[in-house]
């Protein structure tokens, strides 16, 4: 299937967009949903009696029902946040830590699933890391060993650099066995794979809406049944309470307790539309489409002095991160920014740099890398065009 006609930016700009790992393009249906809210239903939610407020509230709650259904949980366990970063920061703030508690994570994490835990070190929390093997997969023996005594196990579902899909069910099982809380950064999995929150059996799972065809400033933190009752909200304000006096607080139930202030209503409605769009295609088909693109890329690259990082296509999400050598002496890497600039001149958008994963680049011993990340609107013809452009890059720098 070719979905390009659903994405107006492709027609309007003629750009081959391979930067979906950073943010995705938006289909017309998502744009329409946001515009429709502004033009017909603008109002604040959960507050007014008037018809516009009722409509806005219904649309907002409908969005949550869609997201909950999409990821297989209940709406009251879906806290809307502005992105996965905020979700992971919320998770770290919702857990009570004491001096000497241990957080176990990995060397592959995006800074969003690293910095919130490193911040806890000033409270005396210990942060430990699991390494990866030569294929970019977690060392599971090391993980099992280091899990002992962990209070939190925080791992990405899929790496934003090397694409590795981590065995989250196994990680959550190990966490249960050692009594640890599992926190999953699903920013790079929810947009690309079928994700079943209940089946994964994790305690917290964060995702970003803007990486799954929805507007910026949207995302969710899914929490296991019961956590909304016991956890203290990291931020509090309008909408988070049932009642408050000068001496006492009675918190709202469910996710509302954690959504202080007027939320991104139009963004949430756009997120609901994005879920509709993805469900219409089916996440298994999204995955199948991205695998086809991955396989096309890997079948093309044999002739290039290119090194890719991470496991084979069926063990990774739809992205490829690579370094490219100049043929001049066969030693010098062409800088990632030069590759991205060259491709940009050919209307191909990729990412270059360290992709908010500095420790992983230090671990891989590379100064920077180039990432081409796919979504439903990409085609095998575009992957072929990328390959040809990369050949030109090599020639230019040789």
């Amino acid at each position, binding site marked *: 299937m070719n979905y390009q006609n659903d994405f107006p930016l492709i027609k309007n700009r003629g750009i081959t967009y391979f930067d979906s790992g950073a943010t995705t393009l938006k289909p017309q249906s998502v744009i329409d949903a946001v515009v429709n809210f502004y033009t017909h239903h603008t109002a604040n939610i959960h507050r007014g009696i008037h018809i516009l407020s009722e409509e806005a509230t219904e649309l907002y709650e409908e969005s949550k029902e869609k997201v909950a259904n999409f990821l297989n949980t209940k709406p009251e366990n879906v806290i809307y946040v502005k992105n996965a970063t905020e979700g992971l920061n919320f998770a770290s703030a919702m857990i009570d830590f004491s001096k000497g508690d241990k957080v176990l994570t990995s060397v592959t994490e995006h800074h969003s699933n690293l910095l919130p835990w490193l911040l806890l070190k000033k409270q005396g929390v210990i942060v430990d890391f699991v390494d990866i093997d030569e294929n970019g997969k977690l060392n599971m023996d090391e993980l099992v060993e280091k899990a002992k005594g962990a209070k939190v196990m925080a791992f990405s579902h899929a790496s934003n650099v090397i694409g590795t899909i981590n065995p989250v069910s196994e990680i959550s099982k190990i966490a249960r066995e050692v009594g640890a809380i599992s926190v999953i950064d699903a920013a790079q999995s929810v947009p690309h794979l079928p994700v079943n929150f209940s089946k994964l059996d994790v305690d917290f799972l964060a995702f970003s809406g803007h990486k799954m065809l929805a507007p910026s400033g949207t995302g969710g933190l899914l929490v296991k049944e019961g956590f909304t009752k016991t956890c203290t909200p990291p931020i509090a304000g309008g909408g988070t309470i049932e009642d408050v006096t000068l001496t006492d607080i009675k918190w709202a139930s469910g996710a509302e307790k954690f959504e202080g202030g007027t939320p991104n209503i139009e963004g949430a409605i756009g997120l609901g539309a994005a879920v509709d769009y993805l469900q219409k295609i089916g996440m298994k088909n999204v995955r199948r489409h991205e695998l086809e693109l991955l396989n096309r890329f890997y079948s093309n690259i044999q002739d290039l002095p290119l090194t890719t990082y991470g496991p084979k296509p069926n063990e990774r999400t739809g992205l490829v991160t690579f370094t490219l050598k100049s043929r001049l002496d066969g030693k010098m890497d062409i*800088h*990632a*920014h*030069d590759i991205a*600039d*060259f491709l940009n*001149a050919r209307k191909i958008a990729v990412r*270059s*740099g*360290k992709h908010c994963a*500095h420790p992983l*680049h230090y671990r891989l011993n*590379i*100064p*920077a890398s180039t990432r081409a990340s796919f979504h439903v609107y990409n085609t095998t013809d575009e992957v072929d065009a990328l390959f040809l452009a990369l050949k030109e890059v090599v020639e*230019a*720098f040789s």
Partner: protein
Amino acid sequence: MNLDKLLIIHKKALASQKVIKHNKTHITKNLSCGDEVKIYLNIQDDVIKDASYQITGCSISTSFTYLLVEKIKGLRVEDVKKITKESFFDFLGVEPVSSGRIKCALIALIAVRYALS
């Protein structure tokens, strides 16, 4: 600067790396992309008698380091100190790079300024 011109300067810049007799030096790193430049300055009587560099970086950072180092040789320290981020491209007599590559282009200027401070 178009790509062809940039690539010609880049090759010349890669080949021109060396360590000279110096009395001022500084290393500047761009941590977001891994670029690293080391500037060597030989200053006599407040004049930059000679300058050189070693660099690991992209074509922009390498080429603009070469252009800057060549241009400041023989200039008075006080005049080099007056080069700002805003005047940098005019000083070199080349078109500014795109906004996304400004950090690449300026890495040597930052190193020179630190070396002189």
